[in-house]
């Protein structure tokens, strides 16, 4: 295995995913296979090659900094699991 259980547990924490124990072995095995597979890139000669940033030779357009959208908070918050007075509710983060 190219990845250890500890490494995978750390990645899961960074990715904000809870892994249950019987899931962990399978994830370690499959992620290791994926890492081994993409490791073949290491042999490619890429000295002096500029990493690609965009598929087209195009720069991003700019627009005038003007307010064009209307307030749609209520409609948008219809999808929220928990709101009160227009605010999203989350577990307490400050004691």
């Amino acid at each position, binding site marked *: 295995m190219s*990845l250890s259980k500890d490494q*995978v547990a750390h*990645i*899961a*924490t*960074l*990715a*904000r*995913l*809870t*892994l*249950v124990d019987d899931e962990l072995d399978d*994830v370690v095995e*499959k*992620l290791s*296979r*994926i*890492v081994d*597979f*993409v*490791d*073949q*890139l*290491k042999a*490619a000669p*890429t000295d002096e*090659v*500029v*990493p*690609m*940033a*965009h*598929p*087209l030779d*195009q720069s*991003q*357009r700019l*627009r005038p900094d003007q307010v064009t959208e209307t307030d*749609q908070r209520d*409609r*948008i918050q*219809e*999808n*929220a*699991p*928990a709101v009160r007075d227009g605010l*999203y509710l*989350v*577990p*307490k*983060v400050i004691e």
Partner: protein
Amino acid sequence: MMTGTSENCLHLRSLGELRSALADGELSAVELTETLLERIDGVGASLNAFVTVCRDDALAQAAAADRALAQGRAGPLTGLPIVHKDLFCTRGVRTTCASKILENFVSPYDATVVARLKSAGAITLGKTNMDEFAMGSSNETSYFGPVKNPWGLDRSPGGSSGGSAAAVAARLVPAATGTDTGGSIRQPAALTGTLGIKPTYGRVSRYGMVAFASSLDQAGVITRTAADAALLLGVMAGVDERDSTSSNEPVPDYRAALDVPLDGLRIGIVRQHFDAGLDAANAERVKAAVALLEAEGASTVEVDLPNLDLSVPTYYVVAPAECSSNLSRFDGVRYGHRAENPRDLMDLYCRTRAEGFGAEVKRRIMTGTYVLSAGYYDAYYLKAQQVRQLICRDFKDAFEKVDVIAGPTAPTPAFALGEKTDDPITMYLNDIYTIGANLAGLPGISIPCGFVDGLPVGLQLVGAHFAEAILLRCANRYQQLTDWHTSVPEAFA
């Protein structure tokens, strides 16, 4: 297999034929919509191709279309039916991405693709099943279960736009939208005997498409004919101020370009496309298709894509990296599934995401997190973006010599459901011929070009940036010379 005649059976008619019938008053939009809705719920039900069917809404739109037609206010698509892959946001109709985490998400706005098709008069019949968040090549990662291939119900329709492809192949609808990040329009089109086009990156707005890998994602269509694809693409394409990566390049008249002869067209054949990985009978069908285009005045030139075998590993660094950033928005706070009784904020995030995402999506998020994490970024992500540059250069060099590159769309015909689910790498290799076009932002099309053991296979053409008109022209000519695209799976005739 049966070859359908489109004279009487509404479901066998192309968008073009239906458009004439509606204009002539020979057919009403309500009649057409009812007929297709009946097929979706009837013979189509066994395919699991739909997440949501918009019956009432579609019938109301159809009645409005009939009024518009009667009053001479018809747009280019008035009364014509379409279905959307369930990752295009549709106002008032849920958009799930075939994920538990978005099971009850109702978008407050329409995707630009949806809005443009709607304002041209198209009627949305429903939202199609797909691999969860478009991550998969077999439709088996859907939270709502796999779509079945109309050519064999034990077979995968391909993915991720499998529901769209199966619906068009089974003649439930003449056209469907799809998205293609690594082959997700072209591969299911090949596996279901339909035509699928992925335009140039930036040709069609990504606004309102739930993001997977933003530098690769592109919207397109699955139809049965090149002419129908040209009709829809003409409506969908073009700059959108809501997508800063959409291109300013003027949109040509794709339909007018369909009948330009192929004389002088240079077709590139890639040696690496026909190596050991390709099914022999599949290779033979592709070669026969190319020979037919040659007989029409095209010439073939051998071209080299020396870094082709690195395209899949490159993709499986770049796409998961972008996916891990894009999917960080699913946190159980603003929309989507939320875990119950969280201990604290961290617990809310981690359990919401663990409960809401399926196994393949989690794998990709974790792969992306790993390749972007401290100590690995240069070795994986930066390296992959460098190799991506090499792959782009290979294509650029090739397009100095040729107008299109022809080859197979997928290595084999439709594989059995369950056949490739144990090993992610085996599944990933299904996209070996399609991924290059995404990495380089090039347009690609898959055209039905025959059958192997009763299952359809596809010819893929890839063009230079913004060469959609050339791809559609080749496909249209090929379809005038062949009838593979009119073959109907027996159970759906």
